[in-house]
């Protein structure tokens, strides 16, 4: 061994083992300067088989594109998704448990926080469920105000969906446009109930407050100017080659599959099923409003985008009609077993004082029974199932979360697509983890 190989000099060791085979590098420089490729050592043989392996990638739970704390484990063959397993529960906060320890009006702030993009819509939905459980009717003015609340809520929820989906797919400007419009709705909500996001706007039997003077004018101004932004976003996205290229044909669910997977809202309507709770199981006199239900044909991400854009326009249409028909009169029901009597009566009339006392100490108590009321939230069929045992606190408060059921289909929707499509499909489901995990 008269020649020292450079690798030996570099490593300071003899690069050969007992059999004279190199320990690490598969190549060696022979005497005379020629290069010989030796048989690779055993460890590398395994590595060559790696070409056939699938990769398991973990997306989340903290990731900008998952719209909340969702963890997706995707099995990838190169860039193609072979299987996707979603993991939820990272925002589970025990809503349903704590509902059993709160009076019905005390649960209203909780409904704000579960689907926090649709806070006032959730307030309305819960109040409707509680009013059915109590068996009381609301006033005509309250009915129309709640329709206005629900449609404003639908607009702000769809605007968040729009903004975040645009960011996921790569467009930043529509996010800013959408959020500026949301600020205008927040101004309206703040004037009405005092809070931007967590509104707690309803009570069992009525609303927390009536609209202040000048509010309707501001609403009319919003209705007049909001469609311009929708048109602007439409011009930027709908016929945009990049947008169309990234959304068409992705995450297709056929009509039968969509119904069987329990999808609701724009997810099922994009797949060609015209199921809208406002039309099929109406509440708040929605059958008397003139609006259209957009239905897609392909069931892909692009159709869901089109359906939600059109719903923004239809919501504006409903708002115009509701604003025109708002009747005068009291906002709260006059059933004082459920609604606090006015202070003047409570101080002078014995019965009112007893009602006041009972409601403040124990909360309003419904008769034995149960009720399930579903509304059309921006995400789909949102239901509140309440069971009463006659006390002021429900025995069971169940939230039927539309995003929970919609998300369970993601495994089916992303198979065969690329990893970047997973982000786009996830965005199209419009999930809210607060509602999914409760």
């Amino acid at each position, binding site marked *: 061994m008269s020649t020292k190989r450079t690798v030996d000099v570099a490593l300071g060791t003899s690069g050969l083992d007992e059999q004279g085979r190199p320990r690490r590098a598969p190549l060696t420089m022979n005497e005379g300067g020629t290069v010989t490729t030796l048989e690779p050592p055993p460890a590398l043989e395994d590595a060559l088989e790696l070409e056939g392996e699938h990769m398991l990638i973990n997306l989340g*739970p*903290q*990731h*900008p594109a998952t719209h*909340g*704390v969702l963890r997706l484990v995707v099995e990838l063959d190169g860039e193609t998704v072979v299987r996707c397993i979603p993991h939820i*529960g*990272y*925002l*589970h*906060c*025990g809503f349903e*448990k*704590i509902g059993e*320890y*709160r009076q019905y009006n005390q649960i209203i*702030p*909780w409904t*704000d*926080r579960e689907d*926090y*993009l649709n*806070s006032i819509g959730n307030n309305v939905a819960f109040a409707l469920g509680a009013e059915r459980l109590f068996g009381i009717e609301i006033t005509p003015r309250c009915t129309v105000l709640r329709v206005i609340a629900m449609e404003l809520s639908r607009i702000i929820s769809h605007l*968040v969906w729009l*903004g975040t989906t645009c960011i996921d797919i790569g467009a930043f400007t529509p*996010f*800013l446009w959408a*959020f*500026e419009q*949301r*600020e205008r709705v*927040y101004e309206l909500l703040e004037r009405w109930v005092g809070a*931007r*996001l*967590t509104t707690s706007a309803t009570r069992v039997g009525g609303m927390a407050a009536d609209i202040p003077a000048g509010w309707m004018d501001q609403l009319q101004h919003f209705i007049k100017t909001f469609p311009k932004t929708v048109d602007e976003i439409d011009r930027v996205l709908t016929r945009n080659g990049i947008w169309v290229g990234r959304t068409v044909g992705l995450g297709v669910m056929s009509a039968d599959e969509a119904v069987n997977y329990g999808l609701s809202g724009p997810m099922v309507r994009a797949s060609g099923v015209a199921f809208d709770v406002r039309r099929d199981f109406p509440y708040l006199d929605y059958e008397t409003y003139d609006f259209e239900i957009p239905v897609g044909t392909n069931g892909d991400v692009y159709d869901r985008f089109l359906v939600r854009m059109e719903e923004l326009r239809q919501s504006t249409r409903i708002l115009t009609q509701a604003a025109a028909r708002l009747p005068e009169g009291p906002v709260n029901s006059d059933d004082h077993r459920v609604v606090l009597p006015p202070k003047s009566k409570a101080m002078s009339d014995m019965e009112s004082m007893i009602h006041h006392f009972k409601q403040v*100490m*124990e*909360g309003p108590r419904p008769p034995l029974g149960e009720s399930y009321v579903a509304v059309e939230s921006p995400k789909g069929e949102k239901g509140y199932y309440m069971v009463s045992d006659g*006390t*002021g*606190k429900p025995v069971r408060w169940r939230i039927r979360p539309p995003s929970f059921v919609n998300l369970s289909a993601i495994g089916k929707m992303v198979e065969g697509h690329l990893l970047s499509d997973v982000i786009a499909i996830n965005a199209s489901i419009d999930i809210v*983890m*607060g509602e999914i*995990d409760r």
Partner: protein
Amino acid sequence: MGLTARPSDNLARQDASAGAGESWVATRLDFLVNWGRAGSLWPMPFGTACCAIEFMATAASRFDLARFGMERMSFSPRQADVLICAGRVPFKLAPVLRRIWMQMPQPKWCISMGACASSGGMFDNYAVVQGIDTIIPVDVYVPGCPPRPEGLLYGILMLQEKVKRERMSDTALRNEMDPDPKSGLYIPAQAIDELSEPFGNSVHQTRSGL
């Protein structure tokens, strides 16, 4: 901070010569470094719930975080300066938060945004961590449910002031507390129980029997 309406930005300059025996160069260097850090805090939005929406609204055009140097949201903790924990943190998410915090390199700060991140908020039940300060060290608490964007901005300005008061001579400043290897907790168990004690009316809610 007391009752001042706005954090005073003269404070940093006034305090510059407070340290005994600090050289003029050191104080000027402190000022420069802190000014640089405070003016470009890259946030890591650990947004979970409603506060995350208000955080997004703060970052949007009406309230605009960009004017504070914070428009570049870093979703990778390795490139972030300040962890803004916006939203409630359930127990299932606690190890994730801890891991994200440990992945952030020094210098790092933490803003606990909202009542739920600061103390568990209205979620005093089996599922929610009663304040993220039981898991990671917090610099600024922003109360609110959710805090208005102006509230969050005030909290950010408080953090900037805190950054500007840092001194390089304080060598223990960037030390990280190691968790107890057996339990994984970094403050004593008794302290956690005390911090998480229910207070006020919530105790009686469950015992009222009505």
